[in-house]
C-alpha cells in the first residue's frame, strides 16, 4: 500500500477500483461490452497520440514556443489560436505541446524505474524463500512508510530542480508498492505445476522467470503500469505547480496551470485547456487500467469456475450399497399432473420450472412431494439442477434466475407466487436451509453467540439473556458439548464439523417444519460426515422435522432418506421410495449411478477399474427434446428422440406414486449391482464419472 503518494490517489486505492471484480461484470453487463472496450480503445489511442505528439511537438507546433503577441494577450479560442493565448500573447496550444514531453517523459521514466527495481526484487524474493523475502519485504515496508512527497521535496531542496532525476527518485519510492503487489503473485505463479516442472527439469532460474513467471504476470504489470503512470502525472504536475518543475525553455503542464492561476480572477479560460489535457491523460490511463484489469478479473473468474466444475465432476458418485432402509411408502413422490394438491403433504412441488431471465430453463417441470416427518433425497450428478430446485422452494434463487412456471405448495400456500416480504416471513420460521460449506456459511466478524441470539430474539421475541440460554440449549441439541465456549468463539476458531453443527443449530432457531440441506456433508471429513448424518437422523426422529437432502452421494441417501428423486439435466427421471428406486432401479441413469459405486460387495473380486458414466451432463441450452440421457445411454434407440412422459413405477403407496421417465425401463429382474448386466458402459477412469 502506498503510504503517502501525496497529491495523487494512492496506489492501493487506485488498485481497488482497477479490477471491477468479475462479479460486477454481470452487474455492468447492461452496458454493452463494445462500449467498455471502446473506452479502453479510446484511452489507448489518446495515450499513443499524446506520446507521438509530445515527441514530435517541434514539428507541428503552430507557433514558435516563445512567440509573443503583445496585442493578443489572454485571448479566447479563435481560428488563429485554437486554444487562445496567455498573458504574454503566447499560443496556448503551442505551450501545451512544448510542455508535453517534459510532463510525460519523466513520468514514464519513474514507472520504468519502479518496475525495474520492484519486479526483479519480487522475483528474487519469490525464488529465494523466506529470509530474502522477509528482508526485502521489510525494506519495501520502510519505503512505503516514508512520506514520499516530502522526501521528493527534500530531494529538490538538496539538488535543485531536475525533472528526470526527481522522477527517478519517485520511481524508487514507487518500487515499494510494485514489489508488494508482485511478490505475492510471483510466489503463487512459481507454485504452478508447469513452472515447478520446468524448474525440476533443470531450466535455469532466469529462464524460468522470463519464460513462465513474467508472462503470467503480464496483465497485472500492464494494469499497474497504467495506474502508476496516472499517479506519476499528478505528482509531477503538483510539483511543477509548486514551482519545482521545469521552467526553461517551456514549463510542464503543472507549471502552465500555475501560470494560468495568476490570472484566474480575470481570465479563467486559461485554466481550462491545460487542465483538460492533464485530466484526460490521467483518466485515459485509469480507464485503460480498468479495462485491462476487468478483462483479467473475468478470466480469473472463468478459470476458477472451470476448476470448481472439474473438482465437482471428479467426485465419484457413491452408492451406499444395499443398506437401504425399508422405507415407509407414505411419502412417495407425486407424479407430474395430478390435479389437486395432496392435503396431507407438507410440501407439494408441481411442474416447477426455473429459468435464467431471458435464458434457458435450468429445471423443467419438476414435481415431487413430501409428507411431514419424511426425509427426501434429491440425487444426481453435478449440474442436474438439484441445488437450483432446492433453492427455488424458499425463493432463494441467485440473482437473474427465477421461477418460470409451476407451483410450490407448502402448508396450503403456493410459495412460487408469494411476494418477497411474505417469503421472508416463511424463511427460518417454516423452511430453513443449511449449506454445503459450513466454514464460509457463518459471518466471520461476529461471534457465534451473536449470530445465534439474533434470529432467536427475532423468531421467539425473547430478551438477550433468554436468547443466550436458548442458543446454548440448541447447541447442546446439535451435540456440542461445550456450548458456553462455542458461543464466545468466532467462526475461524471452529472445525468444519463444529461449524456445520452450529449451522444446523442456526437453522433450528425458528423451529422450522422443513429443513433443506444442500450437500450438508460434502465439504467434511469422512468421519465427521457420519456424525453429521447421525445428528440429522436423530433430529428427524426427535423433532418430527422434515428434511430435503440434496446429495450426489447415494450412500447418504440410502442411509438417511425415506424417498428419493433422481434428477438428470433439470428433470426428475425417477422417483419413489429408497427401497424401490435404489433396490430396483428402472431408469438406466439410476442404474448407472448405482453401477459407478466404488463399494464392492463382499465375496466379489475387486474390479481393476471403476465403472463410470461416459460423457457429461449436457448444458441447459443443449437439452434435446427427447430423453435427455439418451446421448449417454447404452440402451438408447431412435424412439428416445421423442419427448418421454413420466410413467408410474415403484408401486403406488397411499400417499404418492413413484415415477420413471424412460420408454424402455429396466425390468426389476435385472440385477442392479452386476455391472455387466447393466447399461453401465465401458469403464473410463477409476472414480471419475465424466
Amino acid at each position, binding site marked *: 500500500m*502506498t*503510504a*503517502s503518494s*501525496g*497529491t*495523487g*490517489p494512492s496506489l492501493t*486505492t*487506485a488498485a*481497488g*477500483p482497477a479490477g*471491477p471484480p468479475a*462479479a460486477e461484470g454481470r*452487474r455492468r453487463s447492461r452496458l454493452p461490452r463494445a462500449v467498455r472496450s471502446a473506452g479502453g480503445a479510446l484511452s489507448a489511442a489518446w495515450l499513443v497520440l499524446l506520446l507521438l505528439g509530445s515527441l514530435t511537438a517541434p514539428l507541428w507546433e503552430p507557433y514558435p514556443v516563445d512567440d509573443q503577441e503583445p496585442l493578443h494577450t489572454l485571448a479566447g479560442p479563435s481560428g488563429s489560436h485554437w486554444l487562445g493565448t496567455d498573458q504574454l500573447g503566447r499560443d496556448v496550444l503551442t505551450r501545451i505541446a512544448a510542455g508535453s514531453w517534459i510532463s510525460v517523459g519523466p513520468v514514464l521514466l519513474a514507472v520504468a524505474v519502479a518496475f525495474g527495481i520492484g519486479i526483479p526484487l519480487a522475483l528474487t524474493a519469490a525464488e529465494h524463500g523466506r529470509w530474502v523475502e522477509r528482508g526485502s519485504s521489510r525494506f519495501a515496508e*520502510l519505503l512505503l*512508510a*516514508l*512520506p*514520499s*512527497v*516530502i*522526501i521528493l*521535496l*527534500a530531494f*529538490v*531542496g*538538496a*539538488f535543485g530542480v531536475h525533472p528526470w532525476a526527481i522522477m527517478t527518485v519517485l520511481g524508487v519510492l514507487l518500487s515499494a508498492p510494485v514489489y508488494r503487489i508482485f511478490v505475492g503473485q510471483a510466489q503463487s505463479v512459481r507454485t504452478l505445476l508447469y513452472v515447478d516442472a520446468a524448474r525440476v527439469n533443470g531450466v535455469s532460474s532466469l529462464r524460468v522467470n522470463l519464460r513462465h513467471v513474467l508472462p503470467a504476470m503480464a496483465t497485472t504489470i500492464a494494469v499497474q503500469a497504467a495506474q502508476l503512470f496516472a499517479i506519476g502525472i499528478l505528482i509531477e504536475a*503538483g510539483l511543477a*505547480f*509548486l*514551482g519545482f518543475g521545469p521552467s526553461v525553455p517551456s514549463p510542464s503542464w503543472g507549471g502552465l*496551470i500555475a501560470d494560468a*492561476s495568476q490570472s*484566474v480572477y480575470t481570465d*479563467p479560460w486559461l*485554466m481550462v485547456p491545460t*487542465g483538460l489535457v*492533464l485530466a484526460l491523460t*490521467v*483518466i485515459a490511463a*485509469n480507464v485503460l487500467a480498468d479495462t485491462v484489469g476487468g478483462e483479467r478479473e473475468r478470466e480469473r473468474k472463468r478459470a476458477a469456475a472451470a476448476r470448481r466444475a472439474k473438482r465437482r465432476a471428479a467426485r465419484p458418485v457413491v452408492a451406499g450399497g444395499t443398506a437401504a432402509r425399508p422405507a415407509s411408502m407414505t411419502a412417495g413422490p407425486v407424479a407430474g399432473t395430478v390435479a389437486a394438491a395432496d392435503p396431507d403433504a407438507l410440501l407439494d412441488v408441481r411442474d416447477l420450472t426455473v429459468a435464467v431471465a431471458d435464458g434457458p430453463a435450468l429445471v423443467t417441470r419438476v414435481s415431487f412431494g413430501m409428507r411431514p416427518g419424511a426425509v427426501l433425497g434429491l440425487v444426481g450428478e453435478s449440474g442436474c439442477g438439484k441445488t437450483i430446485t432446492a433453492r427455488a422452494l*424458499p425463493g*432463494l434463487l441467485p440473482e437473474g434466475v427465477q421461477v418460470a412456471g409451476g407451483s410450490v405448495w407448502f402448508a396450503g400456500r403456493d410459495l412460487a407466487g408469494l411476494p418477497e416480504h411474505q417469503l421472508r416471513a*416463511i*424463511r*427460518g*420460521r417454516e423452511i*430453513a436451509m443449511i*449449506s454445503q460449506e459450513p466454514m*464460509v*456459511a*457463518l*459471518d466471520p466478524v*461476529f*461471534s457465534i453467540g451473536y449470530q445465534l441470539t439474533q434470529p432467536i430474539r427475532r423468531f421467539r421475541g425473547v430478551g438477550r439473556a433468554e436468547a443466550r440460554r436458548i442458543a446454548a440449549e440448541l447447541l447442546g441439541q446439535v451435540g456440542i458439548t461445550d456450548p458456553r465456549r462455542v458461543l464466545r468463539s*468466532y467462526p*475461524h476458531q471452529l472445525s468444519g464439523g463444529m461449524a456445520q453443527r452450529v449451522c444446523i443449530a442456526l*437453522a433450528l432457531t*425458528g423451529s422450522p417444519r422443513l429443513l433443506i440441506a444442500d450437500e450438508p456433508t460434502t465439504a467434511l471429513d469422512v468421519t465427521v460426515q457420519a456424525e453429521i448424518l447421525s445428528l440429522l437422523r436423530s433430529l428427524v426422529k426427535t423433532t418430527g422435522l422434515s428434511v430435503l437432502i440434496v446429495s450426489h452421494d447415494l450412500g447418504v441417501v440410502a442411509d438417511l432418506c425415506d424417498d428419493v428423486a433422481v434428477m438428470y439435466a433439470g428433470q426428475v427421471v425417477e422417483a419413489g421410495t429408497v427401497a424401490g428406486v435404489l433396490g430396483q432401479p428402472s431408469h438406466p441413469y439410476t442404474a448407472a449411478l448405482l453401477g459407478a459405486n466404488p463399494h464392492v460387495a463382499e465375496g466379489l473380486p475387486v474390479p481393476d477399474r471403476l465403472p463410470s458414466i461416459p460423457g457429461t451432463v449436457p448444458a441447459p441450452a443443449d437439452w434435446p427434446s427427447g430423453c435427455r440421457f439418451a446421448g449417454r445411454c447404452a440402451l438408447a434407440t431412435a424412439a428416445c428422440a421423442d419427448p418421454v412422459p413420466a410413467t408410474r413405477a415403484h408401486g403406488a403407496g397411499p400417499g404418492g406414486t413413484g415415477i420413471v421417465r424412460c420408454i424402455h425401463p429396466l425390468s426389476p429382474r435385472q440385477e442392479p449391482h452386476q455391472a455387466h448386466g447393466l447399461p453401465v458402459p465401458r469403464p473410463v477412469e477409476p472414480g471419475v464419472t465424466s
Partner: protein
Amino acid sequence: MLTYLARRLAFAVATVLAASVVSFLLVHASGSSPGAITAGAGASPAQVAAENHRLGWDQPLVTQYLTWLGHAARGNLGVSLIDGHNIWSDLLNRLPVTASIALFATLLSAIFGVLIGVAAAVRGGRLDRLVSVGSGVALSLPQFWVGILLVYLIAIKWHLLPATGYVTFSASPGQYLQSLALPVITLAITGTAIIARTTRTGMITALRQEHIRTLQALGTPPWRIRYVHALRFAGGPVVSVLGIQFIALFGGSVVIEQLFALPGLGQAAANAIDNSDIPAVQGVVIIATVVVVITNLVLDLVLAALDPKVRTA
C-alpha cells in the same frame, strides 16, 4: 497481541530513523552548505568556512548525525538559517493547520464516500454507473486545478467563502471553519471518490459472500443484512484506505497549503526548500515521517481490533 504491538512499535522507530538518515544524507550530498546561506550572498570563502565551522558542518558526518539525533530526540530541531526561529516550535505551531485540513477532509470523505459507495452497491443500475464514472473523473483531476476552480467560482464569483488565508480556532471558530472550507472541500473531492469506490467494491463483494445467503435463508430483514453484516464485512478495507487517505492528505497538503496560503507544515516544507534552509528541511521530513508512522500504527491497531482473527489470536 502484545508481541504484535511491540513489533509494530519497533518498526515505527526504525522508519523514523531511516527517514532521518535519508534526509541527513540528502542534505549533505547536495554540495550546498549552511554557511553559504547564513553568510549571505557575496561572502568570501573564508567567511563561509567560518560560518560552517560555527554550525559544526566541518565535523565528521557520523558525529554531526548523532549530535542532531540527540537534539532531535529531546525536541530540539535547531534554528532556522533564515530567521533564527526555533524550528521545533515553528513546526508545532503549524501542525494544527495541516492536521485540521487532513482531519476534516478525511472525515468528509468518510461520510460521503461510504454513503455514496453503499448507495451505488445496493441500488445498482444507473446510480451505480454514475458513481463509477463520476468517481473515475474526480480521481483524475489534479487537486490544485480543482482548488483554483473552486476559488474562482465560490470565492471570486459568488463571494461565499474567503479565497485564501487562515484564522486560528481560538481567534474565531466561525472564521476558522470558513478559512478551512475551500481547501477541505478540494481535498475531500478526491477522497470521497476513493472511499466511494472502495466501499462499493467492498459491499458488492460482501453481499456475495456465502454467509449472507445463510442470513437470507433465516429471513433476516434486508436492512440488517446490508447495514450490519455486509457493511461490517466491507469495513476493513474502507478503514485502511481511510488511513492511507489521511497520510496522503498530510503529504498532499504541500500543494493545497501553497494554493490557499495556509501556514501549515506543507508551506513550511516549500519555504524551507525554496530557501535551502537545511535544518528546517530535516525537521519537516522528521515531523512528516512521525505523523505517517503514528497514523500507520493507529491504523494497524484499528484493523487488528476489527478482525476477530487478529483480536482473538
